[in-house]
């Protein structure tokens, strides 16, 4: 899911990454709406709110919203910073570090919310800031490593693309185009996963409360570990294959001599 980059990624890689991360984004967004009455996985609405509050001279809200938008941007900046600067050293860790940082942010929200949160406005603002930064990290990372084909924290672009693709499918030549069909499959997977995450969060929040963030962290850990696991298996298989080749070569040499 994480160690492949750009055009080397298969549809299956993108679908696995897209479905798991959009599921968590859906959960985070609904949880933040229920708890804090504000969204945390997209910023389009905040641009409109920023303008409206600016006109109404509500400067406190202007600054709060500006910092949220900026933190989402900062998250995306940070995620791609790791990808751009660390990929030559170790591609897996360059892709995994933003995710680790995201897990840390969301775990911090979960721990603080569960054990220390007194529902003051300042606490709400800081917890939402952490969540928007985390969502910026996630969106930046998935978009960056998938050559902009996996964006998981908001569905505006996905809905637009689906509309375009579905209209194209009214022509047989496009319907038979595997690339377009794969794109539609990927987007539909992301949309369904996001929606499922949102429904799961909305229906279980009452029981889990802030512990819901630990569930999200667990899913993200699965994304991290899945790759470590597959890399280990691939390495093991590679070593086994090489050993077998050496053994066969040795056997042949022995036979010839």
């Amino acid at each position: 899911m994480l160690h492949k980059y750009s055009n080397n990624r298969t549809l299956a890689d993108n679908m696995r990454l897209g479905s798991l991360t959009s599921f968590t984004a859906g959960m985070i967004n609904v949880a933040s709406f229920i708890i804090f009455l504000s969204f945390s996985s997209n910023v389009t609405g905040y641009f409109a709110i920023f303008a409206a509050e600016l006109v109404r001279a509500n400067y406190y809200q202007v600054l709060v919203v500006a910092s949220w938008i900026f933190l989402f941007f900062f998250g995306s900046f940070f995620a791609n910073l790791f990808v751009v600067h660390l990929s030559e050293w170790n591609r897996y860790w360059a892709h995994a570090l933003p995710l680790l940082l995201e897990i840390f942010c969301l775990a911090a929200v979960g721990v603080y919310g569960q054990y220390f949160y007194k529902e003051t406005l300042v606490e709400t603002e800081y917890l939402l800031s952490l969540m928007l930064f985390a969502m910026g990290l996630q969106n930046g990372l998935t978009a960056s490593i998938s050559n902009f084909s996996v964006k998981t924290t908001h569905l505006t672009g996905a809905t637009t693309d689906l509309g375009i693709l579905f209209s194209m499918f009214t022509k047989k030549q496009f319907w038979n185009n595997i690339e377009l069909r794969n794109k539609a499959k990927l987007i539909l997977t992301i949309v369904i996963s996001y929606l499922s995450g949102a429904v799961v969060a909305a229906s279980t929040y009452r029981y889990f409360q802030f512990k819901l963030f630990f569930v999200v962290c667990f899913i993200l850990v699965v994304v991290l570990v899945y790759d470590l696991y597959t890399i280990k298996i691939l390495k093991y298989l590679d070593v086994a294959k090489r050993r077998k080749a050496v053994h066969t070569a040795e056997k042949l040499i022995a036979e010839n001599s």
Partner: protein
Amino acid sequence: MNYLAGFTLLLIAILVMVAQLKKHVPNPEELILGNWTEKAWQYEKVSNPNELHRKHSVDTMAQSVKDQLGKHLIIHSAETWHFNSHGKLLLRGADTVKMVNWKVKGRGHILELEYANQVIEHYNITELTSTRLVLNFDSDIQVKGIAKLTFDNLDRVTQIQQ
């Protein structure tokens, strides 16, 4: 490497600047403290065009208007609201006094009131200055629409009068 350090420092500087600026702007949680007296209960929007006349009600403080707009809400019997810093709100009516918990949520645009029986009501803070508070809420018991509740800050008004 210089570019990286420069960019990162610039972004952190912007974040610190926004945080510093926020300290100089009044916080809604502080602005709302004190005594507020109800000035008007009005319909701002109605869903049914036949109910448009309700938007132009003359007596905006009549109990009948308050009952119509917010009978399902506990606040409808109050006349003055006292927000204290411990998160308690005292709702004083003509012959009633109620104590509820209050919190400001979202980006400072939602007022949450929680009653003893854990009933929670949310109001949109449309305007909040040192002298005026405007709350909006959905009114859907008799006439569907958005209701508007306007307050004057009693402490400020008294100060100005003196």
